[in-house]
């Protein structure tokens, strides 16, 4: 086996340590944005951007986890709505706060976990399951909330708008969730299995990994982020609605993919995903500050997402041909 010597370089970037090109794009974007708009770079606005990252960031952690495992949850928008509907109804009915919050998180876990169960037990393609789930959960949210938005009054106002040690509470939640996910994916056995599952389900199965149980667990953990994000969203807005989460699934997927998470599994990092979140939210903030109209905002946001992906591709200097074809 002597010939193997010195063939393998000492330290190469592994899936765990991949820093996406999006980081440079975000930094570039922040600099350009600060130049274009005098308010953008102010401490106040940057603080606002970070606050706005909270809900999407929490959701995107779960989405990354699923994508890395080769799974997908397309229903998180509807699930977030369902969480607000359940928690909101309970809050309005005067149930104790702790119970309401627990119910919210549990709703997220149950909603995502049910998908995981179907995927694990019946081996149905995750995408079709979550497509069906998103429709069904939207209906459920409508039923629970009587089809209309509702206010939660002053409940959760401290959490949603308050700060602790002058760090906004919702940002603290994001930081905690993100750190937990980083540890989970980088350091734990579970995290390694998630990467393995996404890399090759067959090889993981043959290595004895309980792949179906692992899938279920991944959905359940992602469900926790949905529950926490739903509560956070409601706390920030002071209202809930059976459609309040609509669109978050696409944003979370976009953030993850921009941040270097592979759509076909096995690759991605929480750090990268958070960079994607910051990019998306910063674009929105800049365009709002510039008072760009809704139509133009859409055009520009879409274009920047694509350009970010292209730049990442060009920067990595590989244009995938070499990545995947060589």
């Amino acid at each position, binding site marked *: *086996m*002597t*010939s*193997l*010597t*010195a*063939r*393998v*370089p*000492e*330290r*190469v970037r*592994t*899936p765990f340590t991949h820093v996406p090109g999006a980081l440079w794009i975000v930094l570039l974007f922040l600099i350009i944005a600060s130049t274009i708009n005098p308010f953008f770079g102010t401490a106040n606005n940057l603080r606002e951007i970070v606050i706005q990252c909270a809900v999407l960031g929490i959701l995107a952690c779960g989405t990354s986890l699923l994508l890395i495992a080769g799974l997908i949850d397309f229903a998180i928008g509807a699930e977030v709505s369902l969480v607000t509907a359940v928690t909101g109804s309970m809050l309005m009915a005067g149930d104790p706060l702790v119970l309401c919050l627990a119910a919210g998180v549990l709703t997220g876990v149950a909603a995502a976990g049910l998908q995981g169960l179907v995927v694990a037990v019946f081996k149905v393609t995750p995408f079709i399951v979550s497509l069906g789930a998103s429709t069904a959960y939207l209906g459920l949210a409508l039923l629970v909330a009587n089809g209309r938005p509702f206010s939660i009054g002053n409940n959760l106002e401290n959490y949603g708008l308050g700060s602790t040690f002058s760090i906004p509470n919702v940002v603290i939640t994001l930081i905690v969730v993100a750190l937990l996910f980083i*540890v*989970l994916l980088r*350091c*734990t*056995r*579970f*995290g*390694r*299995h998630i*990467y*393995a599952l*996404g*890399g*090759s389900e*067959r*090889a*993981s*199965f*043959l*290595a*004895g*990994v*309980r792949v179906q149980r692992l899938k279920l*667990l991944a959905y359940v953990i992602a469900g926790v982020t949905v529950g926490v994000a739903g509560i956070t969203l409601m706390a920030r807005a002071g209202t809930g609605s059976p459609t309040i989460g609509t669109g978050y699934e696409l944003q979370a997927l976009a953030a993850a993919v921009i941040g270097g998470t592979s759509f076909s599994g*096995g*690759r991605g990092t929480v750090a990268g995903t958070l960079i994607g979140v910051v990019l998306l939210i910063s674009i929105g903030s800049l365009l709002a500050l510039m008072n760009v109209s809704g139509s133009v905002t859409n055009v520009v946001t879409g274009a920047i997402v694509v350009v970010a992906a292209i730049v990442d591709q060009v920067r990595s200097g590989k244009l995938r041909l070499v990545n995947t074809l060589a």
Partner: protein
Amino acid sequence: MTAILEVENVTKSYGATQALKGVSFSLSAGRTLAVVGDNGAGKSTLVKILTGMFPPTTGGLRLDGEPVTFNNPRDAHRAGIEAVFQDLALVPNLDVAGNFFLRREIITPSWLGPFGVVRKRKMARVAKESVSELHIRIPGIDGQEISKMSGGQRQCVAIARAAYWAGRVLILDEPTAALGVEESGEVLRVLNTIKKERNIGQLVISHNMEHVWAVADDILVLRQGAQQALLRTADTTPSEVVGLITGAHQIKEKA
């Protein structure tokens, strides 16, 4: 000499294709059985059944004389059976240690189960040590992804892994197919060492009669899914075995 694993009249059909038409043999501690046969004879199918990838269509397995059903590879692992598959079955985006310890990561604290923290350094060290114990050297053990290794390098990783974990039975499906001359020799030597040191049973699939003679105590010949012959290596010759493989030769008695 006790039989660890007994295979009793195992068959396997893929739809219309009968890949195995009734195979029976037993594997004893400290002995190596070579399974030979033409392409498509059903050798890999046999491996897949023995490792719990899927159940046989009919027939069964016995472990230490007790009937046993493997529902998945995990069950086979528990029974001490490890395998190198023909397509290696390595996870391409993990590195050597990642594949080596997949599912059996060293964690701390251990009661945390799936959420225990993986001890990367230790795993890399243990992987390296075990590899050198097996006289296989794989440098950069905690760097390179498997997907960026050469065919032979991958095969070495798969062999090292299976050899490290095998407690009772070690199964190798064409383990030297992608290996160079020296590497092949090394692997054959290691197989013989393990057999003696650990007193485990081995099942080796190979098309190379030289390699078969270097390791095997017994030879099972498959032909188009049927069990053609089960012979002692000492009692036969390479040319007779080749004749049995191709059908030029026939043996009536079954061992």
